[in-house]
């Protein structure tokens, strides 16, 4: 037992030593918290938000978004594409920037874009997502006179394909296929008949084997990108360090726009799964930036004594919490029933309870900040069990003396509400709805489910009502997967199907004129309110805490919630 004090002393010494050495390498580094590892950094397989954030620093795509004005802007290309239409095909002609080069100084050429599209469709690679997402690009035509000019021939006439046609990272042909073995393979053949493509071009098989062997998912250093940063180190589930390239091509631009300027010297992403630990690290100065703390933590910290050392930011996001009705359930088939049940959500109180007020209301799926398209003549939903009871009666439901609602042809009104188990926000909403429904005699059963199970229930329609988080898109409105008949079994979880709505959704997708597009969107919002397959409870606000060491913080409404390229350290500021 006498050993114990000596042991404790030794441990304390260890701790003291660490305390002295911990921050030596952080002088020029901005340390950012991540809750989980990015898992894979292959640009064509990337799926997690963390991976997406890094891919956009290591690689460039043709287009990007102006995070402040929420516009699509050219990145690797000189300007937005020239659009021309021939029958049902759309031709998008791009011109790559003359300054854009790879790390070895070779220019980024149209053949790199063609190579990227071929890799996406190369058989034997796990690129199913990319194949489906960019499958609308039927062919690429390279300009024989200008190696930086090319035309994408797309099968869709939707204006939304402009962004989709240019939002994938461009891969270097010189590094992955130095002999150009894929050049001879027509993209159209790869897309339509993989077996025939492999038979005619055996090089595809060898390329796929080489690509898989390179394990780019875990070794992104083997894939040079034309983005502003290079990977310095990556320890899985611990940290990832990125270093700014000294000779990045965009530095040569005379007046580079903000998305072509990279300010931080080094970025160290620290992977800390637990929120308490991450907050402690931030307060101790072991972290500089903590994106998306829980609303509770954010509010508590803002009210604490740490405000002298910490700065707090919010930005209205496009993430929303939505409640959906399974419109194919007999009891929920009539819009009047769905409208009545929508009145049982106490939205202001829910915003306060789940987000401490860090949320804002909307009458529909359109963000109120989109002034042109937002249907502001629609009133906000009110919380009124009395009115809900009246509307249920009007919808043909009768309150039985023994309790519960009954509709002669349909039967009882008894609902099950599904949500992600463990998501406290969803649980709060479900509980509030259950309590409000109980007040007017509607029986509601809570049905929390594990993520995969919930996904299956939603896709197969095994739900009455569901609560889920949805991310809106500031650049395009595509309701085809969400509310069109063809989306049933895929992402149309409310199984909403109405010819008028389908027509309107198709018209919105195809409309090129912004004014007419906005008018169609307003009509669609009115239809949505009338039919109520979904109820938007609220949009949330992005939250961000930084130490005062970090300056020039620009919060964004899109993920990851901040503009990492603009960040600066107080000591490094000129």
């Amino acid at each position, binding site marked *: 037992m006498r050993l114990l004090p000596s042991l404790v002393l030794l441990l304390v010494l260890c701790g003291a030593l660490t305390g002295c050495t911990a921050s030596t390498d952080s002088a020029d580094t901005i340390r950012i918290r991540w809750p989980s590892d990015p898992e894979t950094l292959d640009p064509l397989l990337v799926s997690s938000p963390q991976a997406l954030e890094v891919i956009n620093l290591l690689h460039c795509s043709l287009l990007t978004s102006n995070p402040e004005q929420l516009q699509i802007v050219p990145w690797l290309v000189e300007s937005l594409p020239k659009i021309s239409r021939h029958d049902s095909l759309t031709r998008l002609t791009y011109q790559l920037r003359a300054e854009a080069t790879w790390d070895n100084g070779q220019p980024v050429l149209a053949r790199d874009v063609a190579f990227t599209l071929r890799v996406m469709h190369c058989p034997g690679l796990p690129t199913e997502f990319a194949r489906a997402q960019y499958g609308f690009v039927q062919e690429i035509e390279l300009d024989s006179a200008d190696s930086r000019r090319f035309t994408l021939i797309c099968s869709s006439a939707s204006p939304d394909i402009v962004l989709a046609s240019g939002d994938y990272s461009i891969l270097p042909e010189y590094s992955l296929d130095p002999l150009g073995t894929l050049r001879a393979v027509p993209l159209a053949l790869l897309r339509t008949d993989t077996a025939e493509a492999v038979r005619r071009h055996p090089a595809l098989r060898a390329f796929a084997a080489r690509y898989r062997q390179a394990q780019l998912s875990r070794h992104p250093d083997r894939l040079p990108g034309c983005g502003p940063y290079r990977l310095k180190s990556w320890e899985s589930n611990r*940290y990832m360090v990125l270093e700014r390239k000294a000779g990045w091509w965009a530095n040569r631009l005379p007046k580079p726009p903000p998305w072509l300027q990279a300010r931080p010297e080094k970025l160290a992403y620290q992977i800390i799964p637990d929120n308490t630990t991450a907050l402690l690290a931030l307060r101790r100065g072991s972290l500089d930036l903590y994106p998306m703390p829980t609303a509770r933590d954010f509010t508590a910290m803002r009210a604490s004594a740490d405000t002298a050392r910490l700065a707090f930011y919010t930005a209205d996001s496009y993430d929303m919490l939505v409640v959906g009705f399974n419109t194919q359930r007999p009891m929920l088939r009539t819009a009047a029933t769905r409208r009545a049940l929508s009145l049982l959500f106490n939205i202001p109180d829910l915003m306060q309870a789940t987000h401490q007020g860090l949320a804002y209301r909307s009458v529909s799926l359109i963000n109120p900040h989109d002034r042109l398209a937002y249907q502001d003549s629609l009133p906000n939903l009110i919380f009124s069990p009395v009115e809900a009871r009246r509307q249920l009666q009007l919808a043909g439901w009768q309150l039985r003396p023994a309790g519960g609602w009954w509709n002669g042809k349909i039967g009882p009104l008894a609902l099950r509400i599904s949500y992600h188990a463990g998501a406290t926000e969803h649980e709060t909403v479900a509980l509030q709805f259950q309590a409000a429904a109980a007040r007017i005699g509607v029986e509601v059963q809570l049905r929390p489910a594990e993520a995969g199970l919930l996904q299956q229930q939603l896709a197969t329609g095994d739900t009455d009502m569901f609560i889920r988080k949805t991310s809106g*898109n500031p650049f395009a409105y595509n309701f085809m997967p969400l509310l069109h008949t063809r989306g049933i079994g895929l992402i149309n979880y409310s199984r909403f199907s109405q010819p008028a709505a389908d027509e309107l959704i198709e018209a919105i997708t195809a409309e090129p004129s912004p004014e007419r597009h906005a008018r169609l969107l307003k009509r669609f919002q009115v239809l949505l309110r009338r039919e109520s397959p979904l109820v938007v409870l609220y949009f949330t606000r992005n939250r961000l805490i930084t130490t005062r060491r970090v300056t020039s913080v620009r919060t964004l409404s899109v993920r990851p919630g901040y503009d990492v390229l603009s960040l600066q350290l107080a000591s490094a500021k000129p």
Partner: protein
Amino acid sequence: MAGRFFSQLGQTLLISWGIITLLFLLTRTLPNEQDLLARFASSSVPLAASAQQLQVAQAQARHRLGLDIPLFYLTQADVSEAPLAPRWRWTGTQNQYHRWLSKLLQGDTGQSYRTGEPVGELLRGSLYHTVSLTLLSAALLAGLSLPLGIWLAVSGRRLALATLFALDTLPLFVVALLLLLFLASPDMLALFPAYGLGTDAVSFRSAPINYLSYLVLPVASLVLTGITAPAVQLAGALQVEIKKEYVLAARAKGLSAAEALRRHALRNALLPSITLLTDLLPNLLAGSLVVELIFALPGFGRLLAEAAAARDFPVLLAGVGLVVVVRQISLWLAEALYLLADPRLRNRPA
């Protein structure tokens, strides 16, 4: 003796195989085919793919992962078309289980669904940190519980006993968070690092003190929550042994109380502790999950938890399989140690 050894080894292998097979079949009954759709649903990029393209992509992904062939040798047949047909159909060796087991027997545990990395490499990488954490904790637990048990038996301190029982009632995550808030917080004592293993390539070889300092709080959490059982158990066993006549005889021969305890009573009292100590490693492995999540350590527990959440079945199966094997070996080891420690058991018929 040799027969007994091989019989037990056979039993161990059979049980391990049974558990892993059951786990394989259970995991494959879970819904996982919606992964690709889930990814489309959560994508903030406007969806350009049509429903048909999505279904084709889904089928391609299932084919690539080998999920489009029957699960097992016997598959439930669709009886809707032929009501009199047998309910179960023999699928031959072209099934997921056969393919997986054949590869496993060749030492191929497959590739992670998430990262495409070989599972063996992933497990090795994560075990590197977890083994240091658990072995250090196990050594400390074994080393501290022995003197603590003796001290408790001799002194019979009730306060110490109550403190140990109080510690035992606290869940591991509470102890870990309390240690963090007391010893790594700017409000109290910021003595130890709050998370991870540092940003440099810190390893035990390159910077042992630095590396150990990151392990202090995680190890302390495991030791504090695990020490009560072996220490109190040993103290209780010692108190029983002390009252026995052979200890009295030893004292009568002139040994001091401490010597009689150390030389005679301790060996007998240690017998039940063998079970506890051999159980220690699997328990610590389970505890490492909580500790790794709270202290942001990369390790085996975290790998398994993330694999389970993401339905990364190859990683999950290999990880759980490893735990099952370690557990079975530890049970087998406990039995062997018992036989060594107690000659009476060796003469008992099997």
